[in-house]
């Protein structure tokens, strides 16, 4: 049995042991559960040194001596040793006084430093996080184009605009005008249009993009309605979370109720998405048991492969 298959076998046994809790809690489950916690804690002890403390603490504290160049390697500059970092060890260890009845107040020193550092960052990050979102939420609610309720497939071009698109796309102006009657077409329709007008497909696509861009610069009634729905959702959900004062009045109460309903849309989406993740994890485990072990692993062992 090779190393990789051995890993798979042990993994399958562990999986079955942990799944046995679905029936009810049992000793097999508890045994594997304890091995799992032991290994996880053990690995964290290793990783805290190898992945973090060695570089962020030890190497900074001790520094590094300069190394001269060799035939194969270039010279390396040294780094100074910041010996005051040694103070972090007693400070960090003070955290462990949390278990001492007499001195547990001392554990608040390292924890206070971490919380203070976190708290101090909050002022700066608040604006950096939410100002782009506030900006993005400022959406136009009044339509700027009245020729259509929904975003149209056609555009009425002025003489100047026709010339502009004609020059940019190298299509004759009359073809541009024809195209402006329907500038959203699928590939087959574009090819047919190009052939019928004896022009390049790429030029037609270019002109279509320019026309879509012109339409995109306008706000149509349907878009304005969408934006109003967006703002109502945002404001009503925000209102729902106003706990600082008592909410009175029919309008405010109705608005917060609407906020609660609309919030459920968000939660529904989160539920759907969460279910996907949970099932994906199960599928991955089943793939491990059914495919990596049963279908691919076992036959290889029996065939001596």
């Amino acid at each position, binding site marked *: 049995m090779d190393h990789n298959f051995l890993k798979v076998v042990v993994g399958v046994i562990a999986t079955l042991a942990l799944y046995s809790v679905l029936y009810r809690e049992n000793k097999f489950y508890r045994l594997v559960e304890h091995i*799992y916690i032991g290994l*996880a804690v053990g690995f964290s002890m290793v990783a805290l040194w190898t992945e973090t403390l060695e570089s962020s603490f030890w190497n900074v504290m*001790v520094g590094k001596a300069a190394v001269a160049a060799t035939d194969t390697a270039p010279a390396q500059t040294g780094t100074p040793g910041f010996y005051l970092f040694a103070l972090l060890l007693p400070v960090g260890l003070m955290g462990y006084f949390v278990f001492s009845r007499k001195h547990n107040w001392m554990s*608040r020193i*390292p924890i206070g430093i971490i919380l203070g*550092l976190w708290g101090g960052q909050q002022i700066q990050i608040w604006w950096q996080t939410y100002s782009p979102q506030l900006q993005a939420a400022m959406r136009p609610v009044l339509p700027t184009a009245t020729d259509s309720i929904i975003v149209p497939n056609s555009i009425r071009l002025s003489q100047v605009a026709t010339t502009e698109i004609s020059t940019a796309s190298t299509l004759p102006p009359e073809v541009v005008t024809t195209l402006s009657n329907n500038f959203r077409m699928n590939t087959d329709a574009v090819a047919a249009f190009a052939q019928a007008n004896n022009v390049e497909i790429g030029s037609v696509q270019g002109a279509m993009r320019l026309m879509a861009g012109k339409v995109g610069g306008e706000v149509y009634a349907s878009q304005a309605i969408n934006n109003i729905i967006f703002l109502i959702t945002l404001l009503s959900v925000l209102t729902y979370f106003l706990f600082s004062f008592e909410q009175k009045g029919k309008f405010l109460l109705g608005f917060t109720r609407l906020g609660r309903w609309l919030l459920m849309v968000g939660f529904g989406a989160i539920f759907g998405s969460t279910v996907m993740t949970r099932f994906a994890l199960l599928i991955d485990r089943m793939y491990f048991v059914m495919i990596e072990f049963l279908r691919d692993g076992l036959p290889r062992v029996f065939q001596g492969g």
Partner: protein
Amino acid sequence: MLNLLAQSTLPPFSVEGGSQQAYQMIAITLIAGFAIMAGLMFAPTKLRRPIAVSVTFLAGFYYVLLWAWPKPVELATSEKPLNQTEAIGRWITDALPGVSSISQTLAALLLGLGVYSVLRLHSTRLMKKQKDWLFSLVLLISMFTMVGVGYADYNQVIADPTKASPSGWGPMQYAKDFLFDGMLQSMDAAMFSIIAFFILFAAYRAFRIRSVESTVLLGTALIVMFSLMGLVEYASKNAIDSMTGGDPGHFLNNFALSEVRDWIQRNVQGPGIQALAWGIGIGSLSMGLRLWLSLEKSGGN
């Protein structure tokens, strides 16, 4: 003597890296640190809160200064600051990597608290032969095996970097891979995948249409779940295409499942979650200020 690190460029409170002097200074600092710690053990009760509050405030004040102090223009190391404001600004910016290393170190040392807690709980249970002490023994054995193998593997790879890749693995690397990839990771994956069973059964038992809220929740969840199924979404698009003849500008396209999902996502789900996030943001800001200024009632008492 080779000294690529010129003495004159040494920053304050530092010595030549890797030198004997470095280790001497570390030993002295450690002794001083433990002496301060011992001194704090005898601190009078009335001084305890001010000490914890001051330390918390000073730590947070650094980041407030970093944010509020005028930022110096990017100066080359050889350039001198124009005035005191710029000099302080530069000092604050230059101190950031050091502050970051301090917080990484303290956070890592505090993460060790969890480890210590597990160790303490299970060693007590084992020593006193309490209920399930055998499980505690298993836990401790697996923990120390992982620690031993993990460090042995790390040191061997440092000494012989060819052992980092599977082609150069020795027994210790195989052992570490077996423990980490074969056991720990499999158990981790199995443990978290169990939730899928519970979620299925909970949805069946509890996901009921009883009110407007639950109806909206269920309706949206169904739309999202159907749209996550690529096949259903694709079929819905094809059905619409067959009605519109594949015309991308046709009004009916708005009723394809992907479009409906997209509309909900942009206009209702997005702002709803955004409003929730803003609320949490304001909460975090006020919590941050309360923690920094030790205004939390239980802080520092």
